[in-house]
């Protein structure tokens, strides 16, 4: 079976100790490895302010994993996320070829983000 590219991000509660945080992250990393997934990239985004409160929390610890896996793995991964009380939010989605390329370039530092930033913002118009 062909492996597909996925990206998953989860948000942990900020009340955990650093060992608990590390433990949860390792748990999901091992979970993916057990399911014969290939980890492509991992990024600890860290503590961030949430745009709106989730479960009465205003901050969260973000962690991102990019991996290749069989499509069946995703459902079990999401169930595992739901069962874990430390996780307050998660997102998993399939990366298309442009997304994979973008992430790869971002990692290598060859991404031309300037293009995005240099572009003049449009004049404000009220919708």
């Amino acid at each position: 079976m062909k492996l597909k590219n996925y990206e998953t991000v989860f948000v942990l509660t900020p009340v955990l100790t650093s060992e608990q945080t590390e433990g949860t992250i390792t748990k999901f990393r091992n979970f993916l490895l057990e399911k014969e997934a290939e980890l492509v990239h991992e990024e600890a985004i860290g503590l961030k302010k949430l745009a709106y409160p989730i479960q009465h929390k205003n901050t969260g610890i973000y962690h991102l994993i990019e991996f290749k896996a069989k499509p069946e793995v995703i459902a079990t991964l999401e169930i595992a996320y739901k069962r874990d009380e430390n996780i307050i939010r998660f997102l998993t989605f399939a990366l298309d070829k442009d997304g994979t390329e973008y992430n790869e370039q971002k990692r290598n530092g060859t991404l031309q983000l300037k293009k995005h930033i240099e572009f003049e913002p449009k004049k404000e118009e009220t919708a």
Partner: protein
Amino acid sequence: MTLINESIGKRHTKKKYCRFKKLGIKYIDYKNLDFLLRFLNEQGKILPRRISGNSLKYQKKVAQAVKRARHLALLPYVTDNLK
């Protein structure tokens, strides 16, 4: 005094174009918040195509990216003073 209708306050406007097609941007990252903010109004709503000028293909991708960012609490669903 002429009675010919003159267009009032209607200056020659630049033609809109899709910035993604023009710049060759293929993937819109939901984590790049500064970029996404260009497609939102102050209330955090997605700007319509008639204002942003995006082609349908990329407007859909913008919407997808914004929704992902909202789900992960990177962007608010509702607000009054974004930006």
